[in-house]
């Protein structure tokens, strides 16, 4: 089973290479903890699609707000790819 949490962290580490992603709070908003803007979230969506064939429709972007919400939203999708 895919470690969705680590997959998301790995993508964020590539998108925001100046940030420390080693101690992220799972329930706190990613934007509160990291210098991420809306374009960065588009990059996260893009990388999910490119690396893991996981599609995130635009209306679901808010579900990527925290690490915990990423895991709960993305896990079923990873289970089917």
């Amino acid at each position: 089973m895919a470690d969705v949490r680590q997959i998301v962290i790995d993508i964020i580490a590539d998108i925001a290479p100046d940030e420390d992603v080693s101690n992220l709070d799972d329930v706190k908003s990613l934007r509160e903890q990291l210098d991420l803007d809306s374009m960065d979230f588009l990059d996260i969506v893009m990388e999910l699609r490119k690396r893991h064939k996981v599609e995130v429709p635009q209306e679901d972007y808010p579900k990527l707000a925290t690490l915990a919400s990423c895991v709960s939203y993305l896990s079923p999708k990873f289970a089917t790819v």
Partner: protein
Amino acid sequence: MNDTQRIVMTGIGLTAPNGNNLTDFRKALLDCKSGVKHHEIRYMGKQVAGMCDFDEYKYQSKKLRRRGTRAGSVSIYCANEAIQDAKLNWETVDKSMVGVYVGITEHGNVETEEEIFQMHQNGLDWKLWSPHHNPRTVANSPAGEVTLNLNITGPHYTLGSACAGGNVGIIQGVQQLLLGEVDLALAGGISESSQTFGIFAAFAAQGALAQNEDPSKASRPLDKNRNGIAISEGGCMYVLERLSDAKKRGAKIYAEIVGYAINSDATDFVNPNSERQVQCMHKAIKRAGLSVSDIDIVNMHATGTGTGDVNESEAVRSAFESSNKTFVNFTKGHIGHCMGAAGSLELAGNIPSFNDGLVHPGMNCTDLDPQCAIKNLVINEAKNVGNINYILNNSFGMLGINSALIVKKYTV
């Protein structure tokens, strides 16, 4: 002339395949140290090319480098280095009166090729096309990235002018200062062309891509055995100011820009026109109020192509026929063709001549093509000529754009 109408160079920031600052670059030119090496080019394999190894993160975060472009990265490095060199107190500079003028050969090929490559690698999934592609490829991008990096709120232009870009960027900076549009100009040219396979493939298709087992010998302007262009990247940006402002802050002054000209061949897409090149050089000399024999050094555009070198040699011979004291050199033997950066970079390589009295040699011309023979050509070994007061820098490009820029040694 009033000091407010005289424009001077007070800072130089550069990166070339053989040096990341003026001191190292000049030394490499005097020592005939090449920056051209073999590099792997996508689809094509091993090719000769000039790549720069400046620290991309010296003035830029990793995230913004990732979001931006290589062209922006080169521009940001050069602009910051120029500001440091000019010893400007950046915090106190009125950013609304700073203009950024970056000459380029082309822009966007690197980014577009990469998107298409990635799409091909991923089953032609067009939804993988990056949302960054538009801001990366708009034509003002390299200059715009400089304004973002340095919080400059004055105007910024990227000047598409093929391989005349470096001179054209400087000329635009001069004109904007003379118009009073800005008080300080960051001006010059940049290129990241060697990062895109398309330019290699296109020059190969033209039969004009340099090849040599020893890459340091591949770029051979004016040599009988030249076989094309060694494609390179690079950049050189200048801080330009009115002389009155430079004096007020006690700035070190490298040179005064006293003449320039840009014209068009109106004859062919790629083949040059020596008659127009002569007209361009003479127009710049006239604007400077000089005669041809006042020019001490002419830096040729000299790319290492069959036709281009013959045409320009004919033009320089004709333009300087009446001068016995004008020395002629070229720079692309050392660094290859830095495209949009060529004009500003090659000029920078000659500016130290005002202090050391040396004309750096053109490199790799070991068997001079008789059709390229020019009076007082300096090749393979530097020449000490003593006092140097005026340098004319040629830069020409496709679609028949010609530019000539004249700088004068500054004396109080």
